[in-house]
């Protein structure tokens, strides 16, 4: 038995202690910790009577240990009801036989150390190892199937791992010496750069990010993006660089092409002597070509995203700015003529055009301004010349008008004097009588030519006459009133029919001239055997075009060319019938000057019909 003070110690020990005495293994001393395992009332009872929470395996072993006299130890034995229940505890169990005074086996010393915590930790570690292994497997699948290659490089630059995709891509065998071979697979143009960058990064302990061409199994070089980061466990130096390689060939080619396109565009734009710029989708200028800068004497920064508007003539800036905002909002082309200030302060006329185009990287505006100063100047010269011509023309008209008008009076006087002479002087010679008639005819002719000249000039003026809505019934009556003497004299009947189209938008004076000429012609070329009948009818064609028809039952005439009767008619009339050319010529001029035209039907001996199409067909009007 232990001495009392030892007993105190043993009872408090942070391990279970018990003695099992004699071959029947009866509990002798049981300390507090052990009581938790075998119960508080164990002392004096046998092991068989009171097994407590001791595991069955131990119960079997203990008698054998007693018999054999050799110590026994078991680690992390689960003690408790069910081995897997949560309150199961684990103990390291040590059994030591001890002898009695006579050296015979006397009993067993049982020592139980609670290792539940350690056991739980071990369990956790085990589980962790399992999940790690699973994760590892998953990571492996990922790294080996993902479309990127992974690799690891040591601080000395040895390649210690590449994922299988790398072998598949490069066509290298598994046995390849990675460290030696990989730089050889890099495109010669990229090799030094890549080696340098990777070495620099390893020396400074940073990651890297670069692109290079890697030779594929088929000998083709493909662009790859290589990125790596160091694995660091501070305060130590990095132990390795882990990285990934991604094929970026297509992206690279695309952006290369775009860059090339862009560069070509810029080169072109910079070499032409026009102002060229491009803007973002928002209409903000991103690029001005060289010429713009040299023309304006400003830098891209000074011009800024909207600075072009400041180059315009000050009065034109606001309108151009509005127009530009409108184009950007709607996508419509921008176009206009503006004066642009040159570096020396001189403004030159330009045609500015901008159009929205989509070049694959989103919409952009492309603008250009071409110098049209020369054309502008030429146009101004032409305009001046035209104005001068018009003035000269007008002056000439005025002169002819005045002259013809002024000449009529002396002609009248001449005729009066001539009449007077005829009355007071007797002419006996028949030759003289003939000469008298000839002088008379010549005078009449002179008079009517002067009258026609006056009328011609007048119509030329009337082309600019104001138009108004004419009441045709009234207008025609007025004209007929003027012709009344002839009508009465010839016993003519004139009918008016304007029911279908009673109004006409035309100049009053022009209308008068046209109708007056046509009706007096109809009367003039009346058939000798019947009194003239004239029908005036204003109507609308199917497409709404107003037409005046003047139909007579007079002499009629032959019309050779049905396709262009009016023109033929006038040509012939000029040569055949004296004194009528100017009249029809006037009609023709007036009508065509207003955009209309004239058609004529005629049958010799039956009559003639003129049709005046007052205006151009609707579709052809401006």
């Amino acid at each position, binding site marked *: 038995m232990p001495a009392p003070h030892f007993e105190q110690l043993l009872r408090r020990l942070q391990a279970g202690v018990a003695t099992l005495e004699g071959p029947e293994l009866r509990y002798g001393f049981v300390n507090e910790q052990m009581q938790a395992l075998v119960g508080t009332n164990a002392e004096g009872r046998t092991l068989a009577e009171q097994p407590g929470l001791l595991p069955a395996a131990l119960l079997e072993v203990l008698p054998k240990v007693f018999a054999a006299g050799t110590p026994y130890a078991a680690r992390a034995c689960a003690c408790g009801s069910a081995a897997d229940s949560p309150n199961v505890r684990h103990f390291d169990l040590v059994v030591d036989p001890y002898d009695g005074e006579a050296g015979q086996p006397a009993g067993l010393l049982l020592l139980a150390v609670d290792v539940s915590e350690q056991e739980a930790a071990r369990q956790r570690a085990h589980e962790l190892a399992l999940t790690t292994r699973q994760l590892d497997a998953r990571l492996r699948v990922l790294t080996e199937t993902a479309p990127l290659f992974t690799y690891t490089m040591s601080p000395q630059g040895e390649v210690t791992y590449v994922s299988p995709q790398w072998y598949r891509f490069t066509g290298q065998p598994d046995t390849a010496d990675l460290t030696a071979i990989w730089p050889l697979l890099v495109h010669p143009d990229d090799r030094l750069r890549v080696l340098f960058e990777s070495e620099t990064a390893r020396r400074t302990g940073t990651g890297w990010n670069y692109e290079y061409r890697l030779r594929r199994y088929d000998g083709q070089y493909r662009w790859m993006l290589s990125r790596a980061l160091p694995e660091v466990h501070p305060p130590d130096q990095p132990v390795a660089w882990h990285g990934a390689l991604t094929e970026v060939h297509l992206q690279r080619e695309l952006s290369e092409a775009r860059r090339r396109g862009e560069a070509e565009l810029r080169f072109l734009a910079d070499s032409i002597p026009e102002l060229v710029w491009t803007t973002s989708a*928002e209409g903000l200028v991103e690029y001005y070509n060289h010429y713009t800068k040299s023309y304006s004497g400003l830098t891209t920064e000074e011009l*800024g*995203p909207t600075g*072009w508007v400041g180059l315009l003539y000050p009065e034109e800036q606001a309108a151009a*700015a509005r127009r530009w905002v409108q184009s*950007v909002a*709607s996508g419509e082309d921008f176009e206009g003529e503006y004066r642009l200030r040159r570096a020396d302060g001189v403004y030159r006329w330009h045609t500015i055009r901008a159009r929205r185009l989509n070049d694959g990287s989103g919409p952009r505006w492309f603008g250009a301004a071409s110098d049209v100063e020369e054309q502008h100047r030429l146009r101004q010269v032409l305009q001046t010349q035209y104005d001068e011509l018009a003035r000269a023309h007008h002056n000439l008209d005025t002169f002819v008008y005045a002259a013809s008008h002024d000449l009529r009076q002396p002609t009248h006087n001449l005729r009066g004097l001539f009449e007077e002479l005829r009355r007071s002087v007797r002419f006996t010679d028949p030759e003289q009588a003939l000469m008298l008639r000839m002088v008379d005819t010549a005078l009449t002719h002179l008079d009517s030519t002067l009258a026609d000249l006056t009328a011609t000039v007048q119509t030329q003026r009337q082309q600019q006459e104001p138009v108004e809505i004419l009441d045709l019934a009234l207008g025609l009556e007025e004209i007929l009133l003027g012709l009344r003497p002839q009508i009465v004299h010839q016993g003519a009947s004139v009918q008016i029919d304007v029911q279908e189209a009673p109004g006409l938008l035309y100049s009053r004076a022009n209308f008068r001239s046209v109708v007056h000429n046509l009706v007096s012609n109809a009367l003039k070329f009346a058939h000798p055997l019947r009194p003239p009948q004239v029908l005036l009818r204003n109507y609308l064609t199917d497409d709404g075009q107003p037409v005046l028809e003047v139909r007579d039952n007079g002499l009629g005439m032959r019309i050779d060319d049905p396709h262009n009767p009016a023109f033929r008619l006038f040509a012939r009339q000029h040569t055949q019938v004296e004194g009528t050319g100017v009249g029809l010529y006037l009609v023709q001029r007036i009508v065509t000057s207003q955009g209309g035209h004239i058609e004529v039907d005629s049958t010799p001996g039956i009559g003639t019909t003129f049709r005046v199409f007052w205006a151009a067909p609707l579709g052809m009007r401006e």
Partner: protein
Amino acid sequence: MKHIVYMSRAVRPMTDPDLQELLDQSRHDNVRQGITGILFYSHGNIAQLFEGPAEQVDPLFDRICRDGRHSHVRKLVDAPIEARSFPSWSMAFHPLEPSGFAALEGFLLPHQLPPLPSSLTIADALLVQLVQLAVFGPDPTQPFQHRHADPPGALDA
């Protein structure tokens, strides 16, 4: 005196309270620092013009650049000016809940923006109009993204 114009994108769409907070904070700071100008916001698009003494404007732009609420800050103009063009600091956007904003000082609906003052050069006025167009779209009376969320006429309330 100088002014700066930039455009940027909100990192994520700003809510009414986000915008109100920005308005309140900026208003407070800008008054103290003599900054005036205008900010446009719609559907993540941001554009801002601000003006004031160079020694205030430049550091403010640095702070704004570093602000994590937006990114892709693109400076369009950074130039000296003769005089201010904006009498105060204001913001224009389409709130989802307009009632709370009606009474808020410094807040404008996009179509209520006053005409640009003639103290701006035409080039600068054009720039402001273009960024306004870029932020609000062609019809500033209509919020072009939250249109369906608002009952018709709610904005006029």
